């Protein structure tokens, strides 16, 4: 089914960037970037966290003004001064961080942007909606308020909006990071179909596998510069491994070695198997029984969830977004109380304890809503790194803040985890998506945990950081007195780190699968709602 992209002559340049430069306080986000995006070509844009990918997308979509450089659309020079200008030029965008109106329904969000004077035409809109939903095989209800949808579902809406007018160029900033494997495949199909309709598609991902599978051309950014490209010709001839080898080298300089990363790129189940036996037959450390929660309309609450995690065990939670994973995580962390059911850690009932109380017992929670609740974006990086331990003797003496220590601490973590930021005093909001995620991890990294709950641990992380994070999770799993719950919609990730994998379905645990060969298919069947493990 792959058409021949070489057949596309260079005249088909849909959008061309020349020497685009953009600097932010303390960073050069884009440094003389020149790129050509062609009709009928899927162009993957890769690069480590903070490389400048989102900024580049911001520039072509009218959200960010370039300091210098020029842009051509279909050969004609243009100035993209606003998102509406971009839309008029046929440039559609799916942003890295969801940009929807929570209080409006899915349909209303899709209607935004129509001309002022008009009255709303719901009929026509829902027609187009069903049409697109078909095309993308999305299952969001058109009348649900967006605020009630899971992040994954919201991203689906974003994709629909970007495709709404049938664009000339379509930019997708990490569109797959929130999708299930099935969703990713579906999106792939859609992208190919659009590509064949002559749309120029540009997508950002941190998963080289997706890139090598989907892309007709790959460009790599590093520290704001274009450091290399893999042409369609090469992509066709080279083996996946060879491609990955090259891309990794470009992305991380010669520091990055593909071998270390292979496990991340192609999940392998041998190692988990080994650890699986190690933890077998121990008394469970975490026990959740008959967990029920009260959910607001539209969000999926827990409905009798049972879960047992043994010390040193890593329990993966798989399942389509919006099946109660969020409530599960919040219940374990103490952010949400059970209406019925019980939850105990090391034999001690902790259901009545709040977040602080549980944290004292070693409960750690890394949320996937990094801007919504994980951080205080307007505050400095340094503050964000200590907000979970305000008052601790490390940084406070008799209630007085020891700013020097806090800033030293911040500089440390920034160095250790390679967070790309102008300084520890810069406001967190300025950081790139992946770097914000690093802050969330770094905050929980040190000190010893009894129960670690991680939701989408590598959401938005580039390869190396993904590797680190997963290693870290494993290592804590390696340490006997901690139980770990990893919620993720990346099956590969779960298979990489977990001992066992539970599948969530409408607020319950539909089944639990031992992480050994064949786990993948068993999980698939559970997700599809057939059979049990």
């Amino acid at each position, binding site marked *: 089914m792959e058409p021949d992209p070489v057949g596309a002559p260079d005249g088909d340049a849909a959008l061309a960037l020349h020497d685009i430069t953009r600097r932010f306080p303390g960073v050069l986000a884009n440094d003389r970037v020149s790129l050509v995006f062609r009709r009928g070509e899927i162009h993957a844009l890769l690069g480590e966290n903070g490389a400048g990918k989102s900024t580049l997308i911001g520039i072509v979509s009218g959200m960010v003004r370039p300091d210098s450089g020029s842009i051509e659309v279909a050969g004609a020079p243009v100035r993209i001064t606003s998102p509406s200008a*971009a839309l008029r030029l046929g440039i559609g965008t799916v942003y890295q961080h969801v940009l929807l*109106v929570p209080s409006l329904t899915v349909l209303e969000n899709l*209607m935004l942007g129509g*001309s002022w004077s008009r009255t709303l035409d719901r009929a026509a809109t829902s027609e187009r909606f069903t049409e697109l939903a078909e095309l993308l095989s999305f299952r969001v209800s058109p009348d649900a308020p967006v605020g009630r949808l899971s992040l994954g579902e919201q991203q689906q809406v974003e994709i629909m909006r970007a495709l709404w007018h049938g664009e000339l160029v379509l930019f997708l900033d990490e569109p797959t990071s929130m999708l299930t494997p099935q969703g990713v495949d579906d999106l792939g199909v859609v992208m190919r179909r659009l590509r064949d309709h002559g749309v120029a598609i540009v997508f950002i991902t941190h998963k080289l596998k997706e890139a090598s599978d989907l892309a007709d051309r790959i460009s790599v950014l590093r520290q704001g510069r274009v450091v290399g490209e893999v042409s369609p010709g090469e992509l066709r001839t080279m083996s996946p491994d060879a491609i990955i080898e090259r891309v990794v080298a470009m992305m991380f300089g010669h520091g990055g070695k593909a071998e270390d990363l292979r496990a991340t790129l192609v999940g392998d189940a041998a190692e988990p198997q080994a650890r699986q036996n190690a933890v077998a037959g121990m008394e469970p450390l975490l026990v959740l029984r008959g967990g029920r929660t009260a959910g607001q309309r539209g969000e999926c609450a827990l409905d009798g969830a049972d879960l047992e995690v043994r010390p040193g065990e890593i329990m993966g939670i798989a399942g389509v977004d919006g099946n109660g994973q969020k409530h599960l995580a919040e219940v374990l962390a103490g952010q949400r109380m059970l209406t019925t059911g019980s939850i105990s850690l090391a034999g001690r009932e902790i259901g009545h304890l709040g977040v602080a109380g549980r944290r004292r017992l070693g409960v750690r929670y890394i949320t996937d809503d990094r801007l919504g609740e994980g951080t205080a974006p307007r505050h400095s990086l340094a503050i964000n790194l200590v907000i979970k331990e305000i008052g601790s003797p490390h940084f406070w003496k008799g209630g007085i803040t020891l700013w020097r220590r806090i800033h030293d601490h911040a500089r440390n973590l920034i160095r250790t985890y390679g967070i790309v930021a102008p300084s520890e005093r810069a406001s967190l909001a300025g950081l790139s998506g992946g770097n914000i995620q690093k802050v969330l991890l770094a905050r929980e990294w040190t000190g010893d945990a009894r129960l670690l709950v991680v939701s989408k641990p590598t959401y938005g992380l580039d390869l190396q950081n993904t590797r680190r994070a997963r290693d870290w999770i494993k290592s804590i799993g390696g340490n006997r007195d901690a139980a770990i719950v990893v919620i993720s919609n990346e099956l590969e990730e779960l298979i990489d780190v977990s001992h066992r994998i539970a599948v969530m379905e409408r607020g319950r645990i539909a089944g639990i699968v031992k992480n050994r060969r064949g786990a993948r298919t068993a999980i698939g069947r559970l997700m599809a709602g057939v059979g049990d493990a």
Partner: protein
Amino acid sequence: MDGLLSEAFIASLFFGAVTAGVPLLLAGLGEQVSEKAGVLNIGLEGMMLAGAFAGFATAYATESFLAGFCAGILAGMAVSLIMAVLCVVLGMNQIVVGIAITLGAEGITALLHHVLYSRSYPRLSRVETWTIPGLADIPYVGQAFFDRNVLIYLAFALTFFMIWVFRRTQAGLNLQAAGDAPAALDAAGVSVTVTRFASVLVTGCLGGLGGAYMATVGGGLFLPFMTGGAGFIAIVLAMLARGNPLWILFGAFLFGASLALTTALQVVGVNIPTDVIQMLPFAMVIVVLLLFARHSYLPPALGLPYQRGAR
């Protein structure tokens, strides 16, 4: 004694309630538009005063109430223009600018009154009314609702027009998005600045009209500070209404009614300090809040300036 609770008297209470409620209704509807769009227009009181003065001065000079209303609208919009430029375009602090505008408008209109009218205290003639045949003769309420100045009918109509705008038009959708998630509206290709700018002008327009009404139909003359905080009550009404114009209609006449009630109780000789009765509407609101607490909602971006691309 029978004279006291006569039909004429009851009717006049309704009449008074409507008279006192309409400026709150107009201003409240206006404020609701900008609040929906995310601009907390604290300058409303100033816009009403400007409208009141311009409205009276013009109506007096031209001997036409209609001209007065138009002048009120223009004056209100002129003041709101400052707010729009400073707060929407430049993104300055809305509370500071709003209060500064109010203080300034209070001072200027008082000065103008001092210079122009403080010796003669000119007053307007009785306002001409449109009598709706049949309805106007309904006992008690007929006069209050169906034998009034055009502007009062207009205010009622406006309430329902607004409902339609919010529910059925693209404009309504854009306004709500501008207040709830400006970045999303921007991404959808609608300029947040334009949306909010327009909304602030609408507020100025209706606030000015409300003020003009107070000075022409209401008082029949202008005095310094004559709006007496109506602007701030309208702001609260708009917040309480949670985006629904009907609640503003209700609230405005609740306040009007409680004022009329104050008078009524006195006229029939009930002997309590006016302050006690004055507390009624506010106490009522608190009770309402306590009862329906969970439902209270304000646009998340209310009061926050929007700057594209700012993280």
